């Protein structure tokens, strides 16, 4: 008997409209858990053999949306979106917070597998046993806020019509894409609640490529039964106690980083990473708090931390802009990295990025890259259709976000993400612009630099380059901890809210599922296996780009330029040292000197089929 899991997932082919329910096998769940782990397993089984030929934006790609066994029970509902990534051509486990995973589990499903492509725009509606593909013609083209508004209204009406005696129906929860996803923008996010994004990976474009505007769920059942009710409750009590005590995340969210990461550890991107240090107290969390936050504590399902805060601009040119916090990453990418240092400007750009459905990190990194090309005169006002993306001009960057989302003018090129845009612009303009692209294997990097050596990422400067989720600041790889966030992404919980230590977490998992899991088992076997499959598909890549580990497991050129300012002025990692670290890391991971997982390593994890496929690239 499976506990903690609903035990089944939906398998939906949008080409034929066929909806199936698949039972999950205990054996597979024990080995791959859920979320990122299960996604990797499903994707490998379905696409592994032909990986390099699968177009991430073609109907053949498989989109997975998966919860984990502890999702819903642990404070802070999250869900993991995955598939073949249109950015890195590998697999990214991209998680996003909100109520959707709980509604889905209460409907009786642990997740969804979506394949094919619908002829017309549609959305999926899941209400317990009733699963329906619904017409989204009238919703297609809507920004995030209007998408939620229209679908909430439509679905509540439908529910009331079906069950008139029930009373008031609460809103359903939905995952959706904005206009950027519809136009197959490779940096488009899968969104929730206006501002929440599964950003890394570009899965908004995958939804768009399937003509899928949203996945909507309203579940009326309870969460699945757990193995040890009392054990679960006592763990939960401890977890909640601990979460309530958390100071900074609750007070400021991650917004406090906006000033501190720039000033304190000198690792905040400024003007497309030309600098990483500033002393702009104007973007301290308190400045946002007292000027702009109308809701001081905003939470996702079950979370007492409430790290989100709602910022609204009530007057001036950006009147009506709404976003959350912004959190640190967006203060950096929709702020300092565009040369914007005033809270109103940052909130405005963040709100536009939310509305169009771009990833606040990936999509805004593209804007910083474009602005540097404008600064250097490589791209001109004409390329931008009249927009002048000057550093600090929030209004211009708001327009640029829409230009990219609609793929107009140079926006059509920038919609391909920083790396692909750099290749194209180099060709268009006859200048090498790759040196200004701050990205890893097609994925734009998170806002924590390595050059000062003071931020957590600076501890080991190859942490982004060697990660199986390249550029992902949440899942950087360290030699002593290569697994990154594979566990939180597979159990699917929030690592900002949960801080009560590993032991309690494993105990909680055991109480819910009744299955054994230890840190050792995870690090040596289960987690490692996920990383090896991710590494394998990342190297298989394709069809438009493939990665050469010896060239691409490296930092972008800018990160070897000495810092021009701040307490660590002149600091930069030595490339030679970095390459040595890389070789060492390859050994730790059981990869050969070219960075490819060895047969021995793969076979020891039972991945014989992966080993066989990798023969292709070993030659």
């Amino acid at each position, binding site marked *: 008997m499976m506990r903690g899991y609903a035990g089944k997932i939906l398998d939906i082919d949008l080409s034929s409209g066929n909806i199936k329910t698949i039972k999950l096998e205990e054996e597979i769940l024990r080995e791959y858990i859920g979320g990122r782990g299960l996604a990797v397993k499903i994707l490998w089984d379905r696409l592994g053999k032909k990986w390099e030929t699968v177009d991430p934006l073609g109907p053949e790609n498989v989109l997975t949306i998966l919860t984990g066994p502890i999702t*819903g*029970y642990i*404070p802070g509902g999250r869900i993991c979106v995955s598939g073949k990534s249109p950015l890195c051509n590998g697999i990214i486990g991209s998680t996003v917070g909100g*109520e959707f995973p*709980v509604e889905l589990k*209460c409907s009786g499903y642990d997740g969804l597998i979506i394949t094919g492509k619908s002829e017309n725009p549609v959305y999926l509606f899941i209400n317990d046993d009733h699963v329906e593909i619904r017409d989204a013609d009238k919703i297609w083209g809507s920004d995030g*806020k*209007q998408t*939620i*508004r229209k679908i*909430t209204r439509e679905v*509540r009406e439908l529910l009331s019509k079906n*069950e*008139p*005696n*029930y*009373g*008031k129906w*609460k*809103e359903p929860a939905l995952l959706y894409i904005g206009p950027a996803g519809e136009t197959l923008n490779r940096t488009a996010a899968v969104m929730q*609640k*206006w*501002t929440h994004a599964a950003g890394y990976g570009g899965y908004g474009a995958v939804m768009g490529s399937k003509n899928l505007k949203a996945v909507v769920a309203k*579940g*009326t*059942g*309870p*969460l699945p*039964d757990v193995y040890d*009710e009392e054990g679960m*409750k006592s763990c939960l009590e401890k977890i*909640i106690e601990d979460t*309530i005590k958390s100071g900074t995340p*609750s007070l400021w969210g991650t917004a406090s980083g906006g000033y501190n990461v720039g000033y304190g550890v000198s690792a905040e991107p400024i003007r497309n990473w030309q600098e990483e240090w500033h002393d702009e107290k104007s973007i301290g969390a308190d400045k946002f708090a007292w000027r702009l936050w*109308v*809701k001081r*504590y*905003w*939470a*996702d*399902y*079950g*979370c*007492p931390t*409430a790290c989100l805060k*709602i910022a*609204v601009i*009530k007057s001036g040119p950006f*009147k*009506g802009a*709404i976003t959350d916090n912004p959190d640190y990453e967006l203060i950096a990418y929709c702020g300092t990295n565009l040369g914007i240092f005033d809270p109103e400007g940052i909130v405005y750009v963040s709100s536009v990025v939310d509305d169009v459905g771009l990833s606040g990190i990936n999509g805004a990194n593209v804007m910083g890259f474009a602005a540097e090309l404008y600064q250097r005169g490589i791209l001109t006002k004409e390329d931008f259709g009249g927009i002048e993306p000057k550093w600090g001009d929030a209004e211009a960057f708001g327009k640029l976000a829409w230009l990219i989302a609609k793929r107009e003018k140079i926006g059509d090129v920038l919609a391909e993400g920083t790396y692909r845009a750099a290749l194209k612009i180099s060709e268009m303009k006859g200048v090498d612009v790759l040196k200004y692209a701050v990205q890893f294997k097609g994925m734009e990097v998170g806002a924590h630099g390595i050059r000062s050596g003071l931020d957590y990422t600076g501890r080991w400067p190859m942490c982004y380059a060697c990660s199986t989720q390249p550029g992902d600041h949440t899942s950087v790889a360290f030699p002593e901890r290569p697994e990154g966030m594979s566990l939180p992404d597979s159990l699917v919980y929030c690592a900002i809210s949960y801080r009560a230590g590993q032991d309690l977490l494993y105990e909680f998992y055991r109480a819910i599922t009744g299955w054994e899991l230890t840190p050792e088992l995870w690090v040596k076997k289960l987690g490692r296996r996920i990383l090896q499959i991710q590494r394998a598909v990342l190297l298989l890549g394709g069809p438009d780009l493939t990665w050469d580990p010896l060239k691409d497991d490296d930092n972008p050129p800018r990160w070897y330029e000495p810092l021009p300012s701040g307490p660590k002025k002149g600091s930069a990692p030595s490339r030679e040292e970095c390459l040595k670290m890389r070789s060492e890391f390859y050994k730790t991971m059981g990869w050969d000197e070219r960075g490819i997982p060895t047969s021995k390593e793969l076979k020891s994890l039972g991945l014989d089929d992966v080993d066989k496929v990798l023969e292709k690239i070993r030659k």
Partner: protein
Amino acid sequence: MSEKTQIVWIDRDYMKCSGCRMCEIACSMHHEGKIWPEASRIRVFMLVPGVEIPHLCVQCNDYPCVNSCPSEALSVNEKTGAVVVNEEKCTACGVCIRKCPGNIPHLHPNRKYVVICDLCGGDPECVKICQKAGFYALKTVTLGRRGDTERLVSRTPEEITEDLAFNLYGEKAKELI
């Protein structure tokens, strides 16, 4: 202290609600023994993101639900003032929901009766967890000489959403609801 002063009532401050829904978890654990948001007697509506409304019985002075019930399934607990549902007698006809000015009660998602907040007998779980988490969006009020002035009237989630959205988002609220 007379009997009447002991009657409790759950005051709610929508501006302080984080939307964490721990109240739904606590309520459903208490009443159903499991986490079951749709079976919770307190339900947090979020018809517009950021506009979270903990919606539960306000115990009207005239109890239109109790008085309209055609099968005499509803009564008032004299100590707490809470509406008590007789699950055997209730036929899930929905009359009390329609008679409630705020359409607050709703049917149990799996069973044939309506669910209404019973104040957990006087020490409501939702209030405890909300305060423990530090939000204080919910608090219990003991009705006394002046207690009645602290009470709110029963309103639909749509009505409250409209007001609260305007408070948070200003004129922009019109485009969001």
